[in-house]
Structures are given as C-alpha cells and as structure tokens.
C-alpha cells in the first residue's frame, strides 16, 4: 500500500467522522495551544524585563549594605543596614581604576505634600552624576545641578508617577512640595522607566547634601555620613568584574573585615541580576513545559481511547480489507497514519489557537499598560507539534496493532 493511499484513507476517515475527530484532537490541541501561549508570554515578559534592565544604565554595579544573600538581590538595590558611608563612596571613586563614576544614594521614607495631596514616598538623596549613571531622561525641567548640590539647595526632581499623583495634569515645575515638612521647589520631572524598575517613578530626588542636612534622621555616624546604596558605573562592560573585585577589596579594608569574615556589604552587577532573572524565567518555562507535557499525555490517552473504539467499530471493514488483500502492515500503517494525522491536525489547530491566545493576551496586557511584544516562539512550535505527532503515534500504536492482528474470518462475521 502506497503512502498516499494511506494518507488519503486516513483523511477520508477523519473527515467522515468530523465530530469524533475533533474530540479526539482536543487533548493534543489544548496542550499545544497552552504550551505555545504560555512560553510565548513568558518570553515576551522576559524581553521586556531585559529592556528595563538596559534602561537602568550600562555597566552598573550596585553596592548595598548588609551581607550578601541577606534577602535583596533582584528585589531592590536599597537596604536598611547602615554600613556604607559617603567616605566609602569617595574611596571607591579615588582608588578603583576600573570605575568610571560613583554615586552614593541616601534613602528615606517621607511624607510629601503638595496642594491638597499628601502621599508617602521615597526621597532619594542623589549626586549630580546619578542622572548619567542611571540614564535618567527628563520629562520636564532639569536634573539637580552642581550648584544645587554644593549649595544644599531645596530643590526636588519628581518621578513621573509621583508628579502625576501630586499635581495631576498640572505642570509641577516651579511648584512647591513639602517633604517631611520642609519646603522644596520642583525643578524637574523624570520620564517613566517602566514597570520592572519603577522605583524612581514614584520617588522624589533631592541633592544628597540637602538630604543629609535636613532629611536624614541618622545624620552622621562616627564613620561619616551614611548612605543606603552606592551606585557605581564601570569603565566598560569588560571592566565590570574587575570593578566588582576592586570595590570589594577597598570596602573590606575600610571596614576592617578579616579574610575569614563575611562582608558587611553586597556587590551586585546588572549582569548578576539579569542572570538571576533569566534563571527564574528558565524555571518558569520548564514548569510550563511540564504542564503542557501532562496535557499532551492526557491528549494521547484520549487518542488511544477513541482509536480503540474505532477499531472495534470498524472490525468488519478491517476484515474486508484483509479479505481483499490488505496485509497486517497495511492495516497497521492505516491506523497509525490516522492517529498521526489526527494529532498533527490537533497540533496545527493548537498552534493557531495558541497564536490567537497570545494576540488576545498581548492586547489585554497592552490595555493594562504592559506593552509586551507579541511573538510566536518557533522552537516551541516545532517542539510542541513534534511531540504531538509522537504522542499520536505512540498512542495509536496499540490500537493499530490490535487492528492488524484481527482474524479476517472473525472480523467479517463481526456484527
């Protein structure tokens, strides 16, 4: 029996039992649609997060107080320990050759009042170069200047979301806000950074000098002015690792940490954070793959079930085919082809359905303010359809063998 005849026979059988065929395909169909849409959405999100990482600034290293692994990492570069000082930042700037810029940051939770609005928000004390290091773009006005910094000026730059909360559609430039009861003039509004790293979108920034003078509750410790983070920019991407090492050495020396003692600070680069995030996404994909695998397995059981029923129902047909010259392998191939075609169709419709689901989800997410890029992951499509066909063949094998083994005499007598 030729392959085309086999295929034609299978297609004819599938077509003449439309309802049953669709029900048979359903398991595989849903499995394929699920895995494709899930993996695609995970990858879209990953792509977006990567973009956010890049918007944070190039070759960035965060130094935060507290021992490594004490719970921040991806969550936030700011922590509550108090082991980092202005002087540490200065030492890094002076002594680490791989470092381009250093920006110490202080952080306090403050009440901010403007007009009738009163919100709790972070106020960051920053240096002038913080804008360059973090790639901040101005929506309105300008960033803190050298003059502001030196003069401990009472000026503030607002994140775009904070500005909107406080002033609505009105331009905040030149307006006054009260931060912890102190009056500041708004000189600029930042452009939004997006969802993954929107901390600054909801924060206010003032000159670090001003913050230390009038906002910080800790003021100065014996070691100097405390900062909550030091943001460092390495000279280039190749210098990141050496910069991390240099910073570690400088801080250990300054903090009198013996070689066998744990660091009281954490150095983390954007690369580290990205790697952690990528690991999380890989795990997510794996879990989705497992779920889809289970649903494909269930789909396979469905195919086997229907094929067994079909073999019983078509016993006479099988008997007749054998009587007119069909060999065992002809019958085997016929039923295997049918199972493979069923699962392939299920897979193909699943891909179409999955693509539809992706499109709809992307649309919904875009409406909610998450502009994910829509993409159809080619490798996953190929894998899902391949697995679907394998599932079809595997689950069609037992019914096909049963059909091939039927005795023609018995089968012809079957009612």
């Amino acid at each position, binding site marked *: 029996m030729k392959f085309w005849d086999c295929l034609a026979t299978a297609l004819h059988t599938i077509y003449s039992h439309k309802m049953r065929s669709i029900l048979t395909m359903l398991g595989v169909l849903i499995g394929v649609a699920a895995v494709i849409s899930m993996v695609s959405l995970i990858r879209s999100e990953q792509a977006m997060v990567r973009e956010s990482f890049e918007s944070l600034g190039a070759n960035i290293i965060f130094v935060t107080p507290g021992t490594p692994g004490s719970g921040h990492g991806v969550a936030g570069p700011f922590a509550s320990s108090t082991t980092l000082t202005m002087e540490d930042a200065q030492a890094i700037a002076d002594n680490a050759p791989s470092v381009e810029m250093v920006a110490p940051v202080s952080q306090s939770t403050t009440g901010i009042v403007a007009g009738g609005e009163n919100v709790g928000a972070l106020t960051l004390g920053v240096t002038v170069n913080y804008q360059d290091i973090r790639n901040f773009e101005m929506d309105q006005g300008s960033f803190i200047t050298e003059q502001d910094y030196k003069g401990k000026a009472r000026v503030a730059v607002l994140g775009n979301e904070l500005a909107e909360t406080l002033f609505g559609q009105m331009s905040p430039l030149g307006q006054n806000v009260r931060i912890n009861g102190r009056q500041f003039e708004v000189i600029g509004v930042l452009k939004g950074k997006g969802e993954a790293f929107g901390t600054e979108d909801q924060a206010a920034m003032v000159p670090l000098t001003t913050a230390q003078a009038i906002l910080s509750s800790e003021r100065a410790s014996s070691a100097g002015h405390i900062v909550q983070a030091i943001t460092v920019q390495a000279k280039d991407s190749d210098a990141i690792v050496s910069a991390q090492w240099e910073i570690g050495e400088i801080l250990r020396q300054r903090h009198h940490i013996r070689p066998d003692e744990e660091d009281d600070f954490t150095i983390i680069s954007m690369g580290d954070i990205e790697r952690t995030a990528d690991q999380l996404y890989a795990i997510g994909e794996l879990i989705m793959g497992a779920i889809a695998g289970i649903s494909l397995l269930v789909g396979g059981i469905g195919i086997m079930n229907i094929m067994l029923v079909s073999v019983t129902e078509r016993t006479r047909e099988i008997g007749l085919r054998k009587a007119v010259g069909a060999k065992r392998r002809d019958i085997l191939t016929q039923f295997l082809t049918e199972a493979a075609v069923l699962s392939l169709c299920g897979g193909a419709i699943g891909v179409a359905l999955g693509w539809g689901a992706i499109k709809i989800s992307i649309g919904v997410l875009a409406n909610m303010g998450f502009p994910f890029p829509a993409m159809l992951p080619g490798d996953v499509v190929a894998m899902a359809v391949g697995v679907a066909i394998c599932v079809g063949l595997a689950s069609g094998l037992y019914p096909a063998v049963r059909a091939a083994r039927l005795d023609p*005499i018995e089968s012809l007598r079957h009612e």
Partner: protein
Amino acid sequence: MIELENITKVYRAGQTEIPALREINCRIEDGEMLSIMGPSGSGKSTLMNVIGCLDKPTSGQYRLDGVQVGRLNDNKLAEIRNKKIGFVFQSFNLLSGATALANVELPLIYSGSSNRRQKALQALESVGLSHRAKHKPSELAGGEQQRVAIARALINNPSLILADEPTGNLDTQTSKEIMLLFKQLNEQGMTIVLVTHEPDIAAYTQRTIHIRDGRIEAVE
C-alpha cells in the same frame, strides 16, 4: 484450477478438538461454476475460508493454479487473496463512507496498481453499474450493492470468484438478476464457487457439492 487433497481442519476449544473438515478431496476446473450446499454447521463456511485462503487447513494439500497455498505465510496469503480470489459476501461488505467507484478500487490499493479509476470504471461497466459510480452504498438498492461487490471481486481479474450466500439478502427477482450476472461471467470464462443453502440458487450451477459433518456427502 483448484485441487484439494485430504483437507482436514480441526478447531481447538480448550482440551476438545472439533473437526470441521474431514478428508475433503475435490478438484475444480478453470471455467467451472460450482455450488457448495449443506446445512449450517456442516463445514461449508470452513471449506470456503480454506479455498479463499482466509484459513489454513490443519492437514492436507491445497493447490491453487498449481501453487501449494496451504502452508504460505499470512503476507503471501494476503497477496493471493488480492490477486487470485474475488470475494462476494451475503451482506455485500461495502465501505459505507466510500463511493461505488472507491469500493471497487479497494483491492487495487493493496496491489499497488496504476490506472485504478479506469479499471474500476470498466469493472462497474461489466456489471452494468457505470452510471452509479459516484453513489454511496446507502444510495443504492440491494441488488446494485451486490453488483458493486461483484465488480470489486472482478477488479484484479482473479482465477476464482468465491460467493458466500450472495443472494441471501436479496428478493427473488433481484436474486435472479444476480445469478444471471454470475452465469454471464462464467460464460466469459470466470471460475465461480457459490456457497448456498437454496436449491434454486444451486440449480444455476453445473455441479453441486453437498457437504455434511465436514465430509463431502454427494456431488451432483
């Protein structure tokens, strides 16, 4: 030519052995039209299955056109059924989803022939049904369905047509037409073996083998 020598067939049901055919000796010449008669349980179906290469004898020799077929493997038997034997059944056994034409083509799929459509149309024409080629079995009358089945049996130009109660599901008039068709095919040189329990049908044949309890009782 069909030669049966000491054909025995024994079915086993657990410990007991049930003999279905006992030492059948018979010779059917090319171009003969012959009927096998017998009450139910006589072994006539078993004999027909052996002649049709659907079943193998327990012992004895069966030669079809000089080829010893009694001991061939399943694949070889399938080939012989495909090329040398045309089956006609009481209940027609047509594929309900396929057209008359496709039904007639079926054996050609397994022999890998070319020009299938043309050959099937010719076969349908020879049973007087070329105008119904595109119809499905459910749209055809019983006699027409049996004609399609006969066309299917003829398609590979077999040595022998084996018909098991071919008129069992048909009324008298249609039965007569079908028997006349068989007669006509026989006159064109086709060897035909009919299994029946109706003397009226057996009367169309030149020779009748009566079988009872697995033995040939009489030949007339």
